């Protein structure tokens, strides 16, 4: 059964219909890429799936549950992990405190006023940091991390909720090529081992074709193609959209 199903999503901003009827499904353990040229509606789509935007029409289901328009914090408790195009972490805390905070939030322990927080969930936090290769930087302030390390910290934060679904908006934007491959290999490993479904948008075609199991192509708010990387690469409509040549 699919982890996430979206049916007939639509979103209009004024006269511009950013997303005009998109349906998709993500399977457990699958790496699904959502690609398309600028302005195709990728981010709008993503924000509707992640709860940042409420769709005008359409349904989003997580498992059997209708989660259309549900707030991000509720989605987080249902197992949706999220990373952002522009990284967002807790800059005034250390790397480990970041993860501890996420673990506390996921365990619904934020409303505790007495016992010191930095002694809680320590082992779990360190395990997560090892998983993303950040164990050696656990004591550093998140505010001073290099960009690639921030991306990995974000991944650890997203994993803190034991997600069934990871939504990653441009996971490798701003990283060096070698770092990109390493990060995507890491995500792929997590998807395989834990059966986590991963939906990501990406500009870098090497990342898309090297790491996605399946690719969805969006143009002007509609899905124009989908399939394996090889199928999509060969699709004349996709070539037309990306290269501007007539199909």
């Amino acid at each position: 059964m699919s982890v996430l199903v979206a049916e007939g999503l639509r979103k209009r901003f004024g006269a511009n219909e950013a997303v005009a009827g998109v349906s998709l499904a993500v399977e457990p353990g699958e790496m699904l890429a959502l690609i398309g040229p600028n302005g195709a509606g990728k981010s709008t789509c993503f924000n509707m799936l992640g709860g940042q935007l409420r769709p005008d029409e359409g349904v989003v289901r997580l498992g059997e549950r209708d989660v259309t328009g549900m707030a991000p914090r509720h989605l987080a408790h249902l197992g949706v992990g999220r990373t952002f195009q522009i990284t967002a972490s807790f800059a005034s805390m250390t790397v480990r405190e970041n993860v501890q905070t996420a673990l506390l939030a996921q365990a619904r322990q934020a409303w505790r006023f007495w016992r010191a927080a930095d002694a809680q969930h320590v082992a779990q936090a360190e395990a997560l940091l090892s998983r993303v290769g950040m164990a050696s930087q656990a004591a550093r302030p998140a505010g001073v991390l290099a960009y690639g390390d921030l991306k990995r910290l974000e991944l650890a934060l997203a994993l803190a909720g034991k997600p069934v679904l990871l939504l990653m908006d441009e996971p490798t934007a701003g990283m060096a090529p070698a770092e990109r491959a390493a990060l995507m290999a890491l995500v792929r490993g997590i998807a395989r081992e834990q059966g986590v479904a991963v939906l990501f948008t990406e500009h870098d075609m090497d990342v898309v074709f090297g790491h996605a199991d399946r690719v969805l192509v969006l143009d002007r708010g509609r899905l124009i193609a989908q399939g394996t990387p090889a199928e999509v690469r060969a699709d004349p409509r996709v070539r037309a959209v990306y290269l501007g040549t007539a199909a």
Partner: protein
Amino acid sequence: MDLIFLQLLTGLAGASTLFLVAAGLTVIFGVTRVVNFSHGSLYMLGAFIAWSILSRLPREPEYFVLGVLGAALATAVIGALLEVLLLRRIYRAPELLQLLATFGMVLVVQDVALWIWGPVDLSLSRPRWLRGAVEVFGLRFPFYDLVLIVVGPVVLGLLLLLFHRTRWGLLVRAATQDRDMVAALGVDQRVLFTSVFALGAGLAGLGGALALPQGSANLHMDLSVIAEAFVVVVVGGMGSLTGAFLAALLIGVLQAFGIALVPKITLVLVFLVMAAVLVVRPHGLLGKPQAMARGEVEALAPIRPAGPALHVLGLVALVLAILAPFFAGPYLLSVLTEAAVAVLFAASLHVMMGPGGMASFGHAAWFGVGAYAAAFAAKGLGAGMAAGLLLAPFAAGALALLVGAFVVRMSGVYLAMLTLAFAQIAWAVAFQWVEVTGGDNGVLGVWPDAWAADKPTLYWLALLLCVGGALVLRRALFAPFGFALRATRDSALRAEAVGLDAYRLRWVAFGLAGAGAGLSGAVFAYAKGSVFPTYMAIPHSVDALVMVLLGGVQTMAGPIVGAVSFTVLHSWLLMGEFWRIKLGLLIMALVLAFPAGIAGAASAAWERWRGRAP
């Protein structure tokens, strides 16, 4: 019907001077991004200068016009001087410190005005032509009010022409949009900023001069007008002139009708209208979301739990504090009692301001509510001290939750201004509702129970409740709640994505801060035996801010260090005449010298020293 029409005209007349002040404030904010707390002081100076000029001139209309314009011009020059001497140095400082520095200016101007013009209210003996009345639809209406009604739209028109038809206006509008880009295009920002500030100051001066014939020049007009002007600017939308005009009309008319119909709750009415507008339009009537200046959001260093050295230091201080009654005289003991109260007052503000990221300019409201709750328990209910001390934090906390439910949706200067406006309203209620609060005379005879009546016992009680309370708050900040709160401050987006409820965390922090301040207010009430409206006044709110900033917002020991050093400063250095000017200069010096606060600077020095050691 006639009465309604007359009230409407009175309201419109009041709206004009309010608009002039708010227009200056909003123009200055638009370009420099500084919320100029001292704008009310410029208004006050305008009135005093106008008095000095007009009382020496012949009493003909043309001389009146000349005198008013002269006062506006003089205020503009003073504004330009202030900009060059102080504001220019703090444009890149954090918003809060800017607000605080301009409040330092308020204090300095108050004492300078006191020194030049004396403590007596100065009113103008109005010439005959000014006292005349005009028949409007068969009703006699003061001529001068009509003049004022015309001045508002005329000035608005002139300003719009200035901003849309001149090159200077074009640059100002461009800088309002994106000042970094304007600088990149090679425009001399310094001249632009100084001239904008002079224009804004001139408008405030004009407002003050025009308000003079209807009232008097006095030393209280600065703070009373600034709270109203903040409301107008927020309701109108920061940076929008036309918005400020509409909001001034709205508030002016509302006040005129309020005073005629329900004088006691006029200010409450104003606050409710402001709340209603902001719920529907969070950026005010004609405001747009604030364009952030680039490169100013800097990451804060992580807060570290106190190390062993600090623990020992804290423990020694605590032991000394507990033993104080055995070696301190009665005067020192009462200073220490006040210091204990200040510790909780500052620590409670720090909860929302530091980890919560919400700076309040009206924290004294909760202190005052707590103090009045204690007074009410003692005088109204005839209950003992325990009941008062219990009632106070609940009353203040509950009211803070009520106000906070709406205030915490805002952020930055909007939040600061709203808390200030609310505190001003709370103060006005305490001041005007004489039957319950005794008005200016306050509530006397709020004495502690017999067992705590002697000074040492009362001091120990204050120490237990206030320092204990501050330590409890501190503990909560290191507990999961504090982590979650800081997380929402650092990145609300990320906090929500990991499952935190950012709104509710901020709301509870606001309520907690209110409850803490309420308890400190109640302790203070029993220590002094009386409660006055000044407990809620703006300067007291600023005291709390100074304490927190003195200690450093981003250090957990900050509020304690800040509160104690501020109380000591206040007791020894700042007594006697002209204490305001000393405090004002001190605040400005601190802002310029230690933008991170004393404890912040100390901890940075400590880190440096440790870094150098092997």
